[in-house]
């Protein structure tokens, strides 16, 4: 009823290619953003630090993975490695450059991750699919190993663990969950908007062209070299910023082994389940992967009346994610994002079927 296009005519192409051509979507988005900003006034500290903050951060990382895999079609199993680069760069920038603003440090960490991403993206020029996946595994293992073995990255801390400095912005120390949440929300919202702009513009068309038919992409004048490396760089940038936030706004104390291949797979799942090649899917997928264990815990608790072994939860989780990936591949490759879109389309026509 309320979700209608009627009466909204687009009179120019510029208007038609706005981010959100429908007024309802614009209002909805504004509302959502407002709600997101207000959350700390209603949610408790646990919700903020254990769910909202990691959700936003992992969404950002998933977005990065999605740019590379969903849009540019380059399978990568190394996103956690790039997160690690971001996390440790940020720590070192703040440690070694006196008075560097936090936001600048975060952006520079993203840039470091992007540079590393370009290096490990080089093989993508000759290979794809599983071959590329193995090359990205190389980056995953190599990065974590280097951060682990070279003490400089950790400022020679004997425990092998770093403690992220406090977030200081314009002289204010932001260390309550709510304050950290707002920092994360701000960064994630801006980066998501930028990603959306790229994805729906010429940049995104270039990525998808490479993904769908590389010879034809070349024939339209696209340089595969530049496009692929660009996708690797931007994707790693997002992962790097996500990693920095992961360390500074979520984990606090960080060791290289926090960024294992397990995490990479988790991020991969977020993207596949959320929806390859969609921005919103990254958020849906991250939320899903994060919430499932929590719900499973509650579910098993309700079922057996007591908490079950964590290993059973994690094994059931694996089965569930695996089954979902297979089913999405078979029935709906666009994942949760597509289901969301279908619901919206229903709403648009509701109450008339056709």
């Amino acid at each position, binding site marked *: 009823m309320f979700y209608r296009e009627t009466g909204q005519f687009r009179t120019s192409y510029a208007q038609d290619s706005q981010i959100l051509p429908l007024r309802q979507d614009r209002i909805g988005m504004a509302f959502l953003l407002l709600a997101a900003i207000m959350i700390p006034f209603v949610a408790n500290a646990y919700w903020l630090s254990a769910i909202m903050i990691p959700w936003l951060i992992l969404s950002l990382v998933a977005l990065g993975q999605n740019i590379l895999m969903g849009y540019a079609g380059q399978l990568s199993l190394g996103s956690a490695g790039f997160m690690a680069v971001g996390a440790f760069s940020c720590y070192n920038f703040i440690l070694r450059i006196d008075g560097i603003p936090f936001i600048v440090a975060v952006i520079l960490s993203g840039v470091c991750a992007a540079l590393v991403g370009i290096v490990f993206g080089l093989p993508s020029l000759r290979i794809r699919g599983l071959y590329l996946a193995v090359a990205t595994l190389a980056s995953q293992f190599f990065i974590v190993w280097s951060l682990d073995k070279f003490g400089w990255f950790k400022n020679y801390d004997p425990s092998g663990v770093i403690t992220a400095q406090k977030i200081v912005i314009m002289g204010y120390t932001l260390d309550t969950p709510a304050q950290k949440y707002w920092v994360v929300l701000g960064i994630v919202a801006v980066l998501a908007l930028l990603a959306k702009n790229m994805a729906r513009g010429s940049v995104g068309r270039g990525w998808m062209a490479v993904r769908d038919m590389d010879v034809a992409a070349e024939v339209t004048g696209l340089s595969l070299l530049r496009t692929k490396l660009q996708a690797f760089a931007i994707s790693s940038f997002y992962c790097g910023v996500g990693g920095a936030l992961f360390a500074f706004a979520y984990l606090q104390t960080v060791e290289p082994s926090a960024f294992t291949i397990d995490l990479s797979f988790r991020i991969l799942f977020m993207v596949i389940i959320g929806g390859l090649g969609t921005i919103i899917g990254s958020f849906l997928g991250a939320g899903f992967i994060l919430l499932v264990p929590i719900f499973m815990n509650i579910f098993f608790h309700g079922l057996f009346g007591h908490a079950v072994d964590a290993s059973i939860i994690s094994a059931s989780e*694996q089965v569930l994610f695996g089954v979902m990936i*297979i089913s999405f*591949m078979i029935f709906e490759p666009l994942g949760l994002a597509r289901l969301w879109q279908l619901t919206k389309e229903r709403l648009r026509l509701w109450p008339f079927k056709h």
Partner: protein
Amino acid sequence: MTGFLFFIEVLVGGLLSGVMYALVALGFVLIYKASSVFNFAQGAMVLFAVLSFVGIMELGLPFWAALLAAIGLMVLVGMATERFVLRPLVSQNEDTLLMATIGLTFVIEGVAQLAWGVDVRNLDLGIRDEPIGWVMDKTGMLISQLDIMAGIVAGAMVTALALLFSRTKIGRGLRAVADDHTAALSIGIPLKHIWMLVWATAGVVALVAGMLWGARSGVQFALVWVALKALPVLIIGGFTSIPGVIIAGLLVGASEKTIEVYFGPYFGGGVEVWFPYVLAVFFLLIRPEGLFGEKIIRRV
């Protein structure tokens, strides 16, 4: 012991773990040759197979019965995979299939742990993981009996498969399928049977690989990471070549161990964690089709 003998000892140890990487990779090649699917789940199948085998033995079945039961189980897994994962995706592109088998990996791993638990188990094959006495007495080299045994079993397995491929009707059928599905159909081989057979064979290979690894370092989840090293082996060897992956397996095993032993200490160890992958990347840049793989030509 002289430096040279020590080198030999390291090399032999490396070569033997290489044989086992090759064994995991072999299961991969079988499936790839017959159905052009990158079965990412081969490593998970290794875990599942050996966990099931040990689990069934714990139920009180004797060795051979447990072995048969585990084989039967692997055949079922293969058939189910073929029916529920691959068949619905038959005309999809490689990346979709790959992602589906990544999903399958997690299903199999999850089911394995739900069914058999997460504890590390010992697998006693009646061969002890001890140095061979006379070698130690004569040369001072520590070469494990188990490793040698594993090498022999793996060698036998590979030879048997190679014979199966080249000498039997099934093998010829398999190669026909690999070359051209319609051609295989036209010479009267039911595709479905062949695929099932391939999956079953891959399952058995996985079981053998799992048992050998398991006897050496315990039956546990970490096997999955060992199995992951089959991926660089495959890339170096080429996805379609049995001799290729065997040589690549040996190469990876020998080089990672030698480098770990001789260079690892300078970096605080752990070099073997990433070395095979980086080696694979170098190969990719130089010879993307692998040692013996066929050159990929793009057609438009």
